[in-house]
Each structure stands twice: as C-alpha cells, then as structure tokens.
C-alpha cells in the first residue's frame, strides 16, 4: 500500500471545474515535484493534500488513515509568502513548532529552556543563528523561507508540502536553498510535495515530476474542463534521462 493515495479527485469552485480525475500513489520518502501552467490548479491540489479544503469528489489518504478533514501535525507546509509569524522573533518562530500543540500554545520552565536550545541548533542549521532575536520583517526572502522550512520541520510532519517555496528568490539563493532542502530531506526521510514553476528545479530535486494540464480543451470554453496529471516523469538520478516517461500516464485514459 502506498503512503499517500489520492483516488479520483475532482475539485470545482462553483460550477467551474479545476481538477478532474486526479489519481496518484506516492511511496513514503518520495520527493514529488509538481509543475504546470499558472492557474491550472497546482496550489489547489496542494490545499487538498493539506486538507485545507475537501475535494468535491474523491479521497486522499495518508498511511491508510481516513481522509483528514482539517490541517494537522501530520502535514507541514511552506507557502510562497506569509509562512512565518511576523509578531514572533526568529527563535520564537522555531519554538512555536513545538509549543503550539500545547494547551496554552507555550512551553514553561525547563521545557521552554530545552526547546530554546533545540531552536538555536535548528537556527544554526538554517544559518539564522545570528538573527535569532530579530523579527521576520528584517529578514531577506531566502532567510524567511529557510525559517519557514525550519519551523515546519520542528513539528516533525510526515508529509511536507511546499508551494513555490523558492519562487520569489534570486537564482543564487535558490541554489543554496536546494542544497539546504536536500540535506534536510536526507536526514528526515520525509515525503515531500513541491509545486514549482521551474522545470529544472523540479527535475533536480524531485524523484518524480508530475505535470498538471488540461487533457480536454474546449476552445470556446477554456474553463469547461479541469486539469489532471498528464505526465508522471521518473526524475531520479538528477532527472537523467528526463525523457523516461513512466508508462502509467493519465493522458486521456478512457474511464
């Protein structure tokens, strides 16, 4: 049994279909890159994986559990923006990863001390130890995203969802972030879903690259149909060869 299983997912907003017939099986520890045209429903799919929204049809299960109805500890997330708490210092943002699940959202006494020490270690990993007492607004985009990733990992999720996490970063910072993410992933063995609009990044980081696109296209009503996974590339070995398409694509598969 696969770790994450999406079965026959449909998602519409009003009467406008966004996703249709999305089927996906992912093994534990796989890194899935998701690419596709802007507005085709990649973020929507991520929100469904996160259980921030429930699909119109279909189910998503993690580890065979019943479909989740709301976001929780099992799934961590990093959005392109607004992922860290502006009113908490950098260190407090990391500690929040441990503290928010407590009844008062805080740790007290010795526990708080221990969490701070662990937070400082995490910050050192993220290269943020020198700004631990500052607020996120003072950080650059790359530093904020490192913080967001560090914070998400502190809660030890089993699945990490990244929505264009490096989309707003300059190329140099982006490469550094790739190394950072791959290191963390090797350590934790997490299952990762990453939406990106950069194909190269998708192939470089992912074990598989999923392409979302509309298999049916009505030229007079471009919004009549939703998108689905049209290609599922094997991208291991750094994505070489890119061309190896897994046999099981979902292009126009008859029902």
């Amino acid at each position: 049994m696969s770790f994450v299983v999406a079965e026959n997912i449909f998602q519409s907003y009003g009467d406008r279909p966004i996703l249709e017939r999305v089927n996906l099986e992912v093994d534990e520890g796989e890194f899935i890159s998701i690419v596709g045209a802007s507005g085709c429903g990649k973020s929507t799919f991520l929100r469904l994986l996160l259980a921030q929204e429930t699909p119109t049809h279909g189910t998503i299960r993690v580890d065979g559990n019943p479909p989740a109805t709301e976001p929780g500890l099992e799934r961590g997330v990093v959005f392109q923006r607004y992922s860290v708490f502006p009113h908490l210092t950098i260190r407090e943002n990391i500690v929040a990863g441990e503290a928010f699940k407590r009844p008062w959202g805080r740790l007290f006494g010795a526990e708080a001390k221990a969490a701070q020490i662990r937070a400082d270690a995490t910050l050192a990993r993220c290269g943020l130890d020198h700004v631990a007492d500052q607020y996120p607004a003072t950080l650059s985009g790359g530093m904020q995203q490192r913080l967001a990733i560090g914070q998400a990992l502190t809660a030890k999720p089993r699945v990490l969802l990244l929505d264009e996490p490096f989309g707003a970063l300059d190329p140099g910072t982006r490469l550094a972030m790739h190394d950072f993410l791959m290191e963390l992933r090797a350590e934790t063995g997490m299952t990762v879903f990453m939406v990106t609009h950069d194909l190269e990044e998708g192939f470089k980081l992912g074990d598989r690259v999923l392409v979302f696109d509309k298999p049916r296209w009505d030229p007079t009503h471009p919004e009549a149909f939703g998108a689905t996974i049209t290609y599922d590339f094997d991208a291991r070995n750094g994505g070489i060869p890119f061309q190896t398409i897994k046999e099981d694509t979902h292009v126009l598969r008859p029902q």
Partner: protein
Amino acid sequence: MRLINQKPGPALAFFLAALPFVLLLIAYAIGSYYRLLENPNDKLLPAPSKVFETAQRLFTEGDRRTGRILLWHDTAASLRRLGIGVALCAFFGTVFGLLIGLLPYVRTTLAGFVAVISMIPPLALLPILFIMFGLGELSKVVLIVVGILPFMIRDLSGRVMEIPREQIVKAETLGASTWVIMLRVGLPQLMPRLIQAVRLSLGPAWLFLIAAEAIASDQGLGYRIFLVRRYLAMDVILTYVIWITLLAFIIDWLLKTLSRKAFPWAEANL
C-alpha cells in the same frame, strides 16, 4: 524638480508646522481686538491675555466656597468616565473581534447584528440610557460604550480577518487548537491594531462624553463648559476647550508611543 519630490528642511518644516497655529492665533487676536475696540465689554472674543489670565486662575485658584480647584476635579471626573468607557470597549472589542474574525459560527451570528447596531446614532439613545441607567456615572459610561463599541468590533474583526489565511493554516499544521490560534496568532497581531482603533475612537468618545456631561452631570469638563455658557464666559470655555484638546493630543501621543515601543515587529507593516 517636481513638487512631489520637494521636501522642506528641518527648520523650515518646524516653521511650516507652526504656521497654521500662529495664523489662527493672529486671526483670533485681530478679531478680538476690533470687537473690543467697538465695545470694551464684549464677551464673545475675549483678548488672548484675558483668556491666559483666566486659565491661570482656573488651574491654580480654588473655588471660593469649597476651596477645590474645579478644573482639576472636572478633569479627573471626565478622564475617569472616558477611561472606563474606552477600556470596556477595548476589552469587549478585542474579545468579539477575535471571535467574529476567527469563528465562522460567531461571524454568521453576530456580524450582521453588529453592522446594524453600529448604524444607530448613539446620541438618539441618550434619553433611553438616562431612563434606564439613571443620571449618574453609569449612563455616561454606557453612552461611550454604545457609541464606539460597535465600530470597534467591526474594525477589529475586520483586522483579524485580514490575517493571511496562510498563517492560520500554518498554525494548524503546527498542531495549534482554535484557542491557541486565538491566543498566540490572533491576539498578539490584533494588539497594535487595537491601539490604532482606540486612537481613532477617542474623538467620538470625547464627543459622547461631553454630550452626556452637558445634559446631566454635576462635574466634568463638558458640564462646566455648558454651565458657564449661561454667563457667556468665553474665557472659561476657551480655556476648557484648549485643555480638552491638549488632553486628547497627549493621550493620542502616548498611545502612539506605546504602540511603537511595545510592538516593534509591527513597524514595517503598519
């Protein structure tokens, strides 16, 4: 250089900022001078020097009968009413702002109600308040609360809803309960907004306070102004008006400073 890119230097900026005040004072002095020239007993525009003398007397000399310095007693009474009223509004505004902003059930139940209630002109309710709560302190505080609480709830709940959904979802993925999201995400981000809302509602709060004091009271700044109006004591009225303005300005300045000191993280966003 374009006008939009021209900025005054520090000295000129100070001069320009002071200019309207000086002009107002000069205009008043001229008006007063000519009226007094025509009729030395004219009470409408007392000379600035007369107002200054009166102010000195009001601030330092006790009442002939009781020896109490009325201005300070009036100030204390008014500030107490204002403080209690605004504090109650801040408290309930925060609580309801968080509940309406974060909980769809509460929002569905109360948002429309609050919107309608906030349309009631509070002063029209004043007679009802006097009948229900008597002519004492309570009705004055209630008028302030009725006058600004609906606005505050609307403002603050709107501010809570402005918190990016991503942050709420993020807190959920860190295992935060509804309670923790309110306490650790909503509340702290609302605090600087609360101070802003208090600053904005202090104007209306003064208005309601002075209205209530004018109609039924035995002390307070508003009471005194309307009392001496009968004797056309413009020098007293002007002293009180300037004093109230100064108080309002100082309170506003204190709140602004507090906000800057207490919420350094909000600087960039506010």
